[in-house]
C-alpha cells in the first residue's frame, strides 16, 4: 500500500466518499414536501450545525481562501472576520425568530410578514440572483479538482459532479442533503486539518496550526515564522505580510458587507428551519460557527506556511531544478513562468516588469501538501475534501432555487390549488432544471463568475438582511417600506457592481469609487440605503394590519414553535 501513487489514492478516496454520499441519499429519501423542504423538521442541533458548516464552506473556503490570504496577508482578514462574524448576527438577530415563524423559505417569511405577493416575488428574484451566481462557481470548483487530480477533462468533471448532486438533491431534497452534508463536513474538515497539522509540525514543531503560526521556526534560528515571512516579503518588494494595503474604510466596509451578507444568504438561513425548537436553532448556530471556526482559524496558518514554503522553494532558484509539482501545475495553466532576463532562475518579485512567476490563488491549498512533500494519501485526501466542500454547497443552493420556484412561485403565487404530490414533483423538476443550468455555467463560465461570487454577499446584504431584521425588530415596518428598501438596496448594489466591475455606465477606476469603497464593500452602503429608505417610506404609508403586528409579537416569544409548515 505504501507505494501506491497519488492517482490511485485519489480514485480510491473520492470513490469511497461518493459511494457514501449516494448510500446516505438512498437511505434518506424524501417522502413529503416537509421532508423535501425542511428535512421533516426534526434534525438535531449538532447534525444541523455540521450540515450548516458544510453547506456554508464552499469550494471558495476550502480551495481558494487560504490562497487569497497567502497573497493578501493582513488584507485577507476581511474574509476571515467577515465569513465568521456573520454567524453572530445570524444567531442573535435572525435564526431563532425565523424558526419560530416556522415556514419553509426566506421569501415565505418576507411574503407573510409584509402581507404582500409583490414582496414575496421581489424576495424570490433576489434569492435566485444570489443562488445562481454562487452555484456556478461551485460546479467550476468541482471541475478544477477533477481535472487536476483525476486527469479528466474539466467539463467531464463538471458533468460527473452534476450527476452526483442531481441524484441526492432530487431524490432526498433537504433530508438527503442534510445527512450527506453531515458526512461531507467530516470529510472536508479531516482533509483540511491533516495536511495543516503535518506542515505545522514540519515547520514549527507544534502540531496545532493556530499556535504554530505564531511560533518560532524549527530550524534552530529562533526566528518567529511571521517575522521571517514579513522579511522575505519585503526583500522581494512586496508589502510586509502582517501589514495591510487596502484603505481602512474599505477593509471596514468589505468586512461588514461579508458579515451581513453571510447572515442574509438564503441557503444558510433555511438550515435553521430544519430543527425542532427555537432553542435548537440557537444551539445549531453555535455548533455551526464552532465547526466553521476550526477551518477558519486554520486557514490563515496554512496561508503563512504555504507562502513561506513557496518563497523558499522558488525564489531565485534554478527553473531546471524545480520539483514535480511545479511542472504539474504549469500544465494546468494555473502557474506560469516566463524567464524575462533569461538567467534560468525564477525571479518572483512585486514589480510586474521584472516578475517572472504568476501563481493562481487556488493552487496554494491544493499544491500545499505536494510542496511540503507529504505522503500520497494526504494529497488525495485534499482532492476528496475539495469535492465535498463544493458539492455540499452546490446542493444547498440548488434546494433554495427549487423551493423558491416550486413553493414560492408555483404553490404560493400561481397555482395555490396544486396538490402535495404535485408540489413535490414540481420541486424535483425545478431542482433538475437548476442543476442543468448550474452545470451549463460551470462548463461555460461567463467571464464574470468569479467576480460575482464575491458580490453575491453584497447583494444578500443589500436586500434580505434589512428586510428580515426590520420585520422582526420593528413591529411597525410595513410592506411599502420593506419593498422600497429591498428594491433600492439591490438596485444600487447592482448598478455600482456593473459600473465598477463590468465597465458599464461609463465604468470607472478605483480613484472614482464612492467614499473609497470597492464594489466588494459597497454592500455595506447599499444595506444602509435599504434601511434608510425603508424607514423613511414607512413614515408616509399606512401601518401594517393588526394581525401582522400580532405575528411579530408572537415570533419574539420562543415557545410553541410547532412544526415548520407551508400553510
Amino acid at each position, binding site marked *: 500500500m505504501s507505494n501506491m501513487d497519488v492517482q490511485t489514492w485519489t480514485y480510491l478516496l473520492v470513490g469511497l466518499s461518493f459511494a457514501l454520499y449516494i448510500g446516505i441519499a438512498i437511505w434518506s429519501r424524501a417522502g413529503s414536501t416537509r421532508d423535501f423542504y425542511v428535512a421533516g423538521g426534526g434534525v438535531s442541533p449538532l447534525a444541523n450545525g455540521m450540515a450548516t458548516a458544510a453547506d456554508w464552506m464552499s469550494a471558495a473556503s476550502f480551495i481558494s481562501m487560504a490562497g487569497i*490570504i497567502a497573497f493578501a496577508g*493582513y488584507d*485577507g*482578514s476581511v474574509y*476571515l*472576520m467577515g465569513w*465568521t*462574524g456573520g*454567524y*453572530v448576527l445570524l*444567531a*442573535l*438577530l435572525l435564526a*431563532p425568530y425565523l424558526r419560530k415563524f416556522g415556514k419553509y423559505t426566506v421569501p415565505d417569511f418576507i411574503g407573510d410578514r409584509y402581507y404582500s405577493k409583490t414582496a414575496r416575488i421581489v424576495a424570490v428574484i433576489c434569492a435566485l440572483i444570489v443562488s445562481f451566481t454562487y452555484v456556478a462557481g461551485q460546479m467550476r470548483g468541482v471541475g478544477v479538482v477533477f481535472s487536476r487530480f483525476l486527469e479528466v477533462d474539466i467539463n467531464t468533471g463538471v458533468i460527473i459532479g452534476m450527476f452526483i448532486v442531481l441524484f441526492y438533491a432530487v431524490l432526498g431534497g433537504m433530508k438527503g442533503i442534510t445527512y450527506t452534508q453531515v458526512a461531507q463536513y467530516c470529510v472536508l474538515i479531516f482533509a483540511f486539518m491533516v495536511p495543516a497539522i503535518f506542515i505545522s509540525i514540519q515547520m514549527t514543531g507544534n502540531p496545532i496550526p*493556530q499556535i504554530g*503560526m*505564531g*511560533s*518560532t521556526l524549527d530550524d534552530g534560528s529562533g526566528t*518567529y*515564522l*511571521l*517575522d521571517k515571512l514579513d522579511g522575505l516579503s519585503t526583500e522581494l518588494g512586496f508589502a510586509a505580510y*502582517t501589514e*495591510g494595503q487596502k484603505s*481602512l474604510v474599505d*477593509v*471596514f466596509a468589505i*468586512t*461588514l458587507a461579508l458579515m451581513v451578507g453571510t447572515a442574509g444568504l438564503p441557503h444558510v438561513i433555511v438550515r435553521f428551519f430544519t430543527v425542532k*425548537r427555537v*432553542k435548537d436553532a*440557537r*444551539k445549531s*448556530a*453555535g455548533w455551526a*460557527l*464552532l465547526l466553521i*471556526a476550526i477551518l*477558519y*482559524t486554520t486557514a*490563515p496558518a496554512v496561508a503563512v506556511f504555504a507562502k513561506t514554503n513557496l518563497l523558499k522553494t522558488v525564489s531565485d532558484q534554478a527553473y531546471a531544478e524545480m520539483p514535480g509539482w511545479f511542472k504539474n501545475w504549469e500544465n494546468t495553466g494555473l502557474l506560469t513562468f516566463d524567464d524575462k532576463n533569461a538567467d534560468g532562475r525564477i525571479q518572483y518579485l512585486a514589480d510586474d516588469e521584472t516578475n517572472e512567476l504568476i501563481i493562481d490563488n487556488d493552487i496554494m491549498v491544493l499544491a500545499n501538501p505536494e510542496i511540503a512533500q507529504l505522503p500520497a494519501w494526504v494529497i488525495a485526501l485534499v482532492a476528496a475534501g475539495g469535492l465535498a466542500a463544493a458539492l455540499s454547497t452546490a446542493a444547498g443552493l440548488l434546494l433554495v432555487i427549487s423551493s423558491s420556484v416550486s413553493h414560492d412561485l408555483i404553490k404560493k403565487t400561481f397555482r395555490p390549488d396544486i396538490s402535495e404530490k404535485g408540489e413535490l414533483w414540481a420541486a424535483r423538476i425545478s431542482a433538475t432544471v437548476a442543476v442543468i443550468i448550474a452545470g451549463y455555467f460551470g462548463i461555460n463560465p461567463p467571464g464574470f463568475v468569479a467576480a460575482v461570487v464575491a458580490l453575491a454577499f453584497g447583494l444578500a446584504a443589500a436586500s434580505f438582511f434589512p428586510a428580515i431584521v426590520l420585520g422582526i425588530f420593528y413591529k411597525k415596518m410595513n410592506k411599502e417600506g420593506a419593498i422600497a428598501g429591498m428594491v433600492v438596496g439591490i438596485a444600487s448594489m447592482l448598478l455600482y457592481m456593473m459600473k465598477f466591475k463590468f465597465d458599464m455606465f461609463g465604468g470607472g477606476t478605483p480613484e472614482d469609487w464612492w467614499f473609497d469603497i470597492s464594489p466588494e464593500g459597497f454592500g455595506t452602503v447599499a444595506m444602509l440605503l435599504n434601511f434608510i429608505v425603508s424607514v423613511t417610506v414607512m413614515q408616509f404609508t399606512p401601518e401594517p394590519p393588526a394581525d401582522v403586528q400580532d405575528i411579530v*409579537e408572537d415570533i*419574539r*416569544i*420562543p*415557545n*410553541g*414553535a410547532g412544526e415548520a409548515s407551508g400553510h
Partner: protein
Amino acid sequence: MSEKQKHATAYWRENIRYLVVLLSIWFAVSYGAGILFKDALDSIRLGGFKLGFWFAQQGSIYVFVILIFVYIRLMNTLDKKYGFDE
C-alpha cells in the same frame, strides 16, 4: 395587559439588552481590535503574533464562537425565568 403580555414585554426588553452588550463585544473585537486600532495594538506582541494582526486573523473568531455560546446560555435561562421554556 394580560400576565402573559407583561411577561412577553419584559422578556423582550431583557433580550434586547443582551443583544446590545453581546453585539458591542462583537464590534469591539473585529472592527475595533482587528481594524480600527490594529496598528496601535500591533506594538504589543503575543509570541510571534502582533496583537492587532492576531485579533484580525484568530482572536476575533474565537470571541465570536464564545459570544454565541454565552448567548445560548443567557437565553435558555431567560426562557425559564419567564416560563417560555419548552
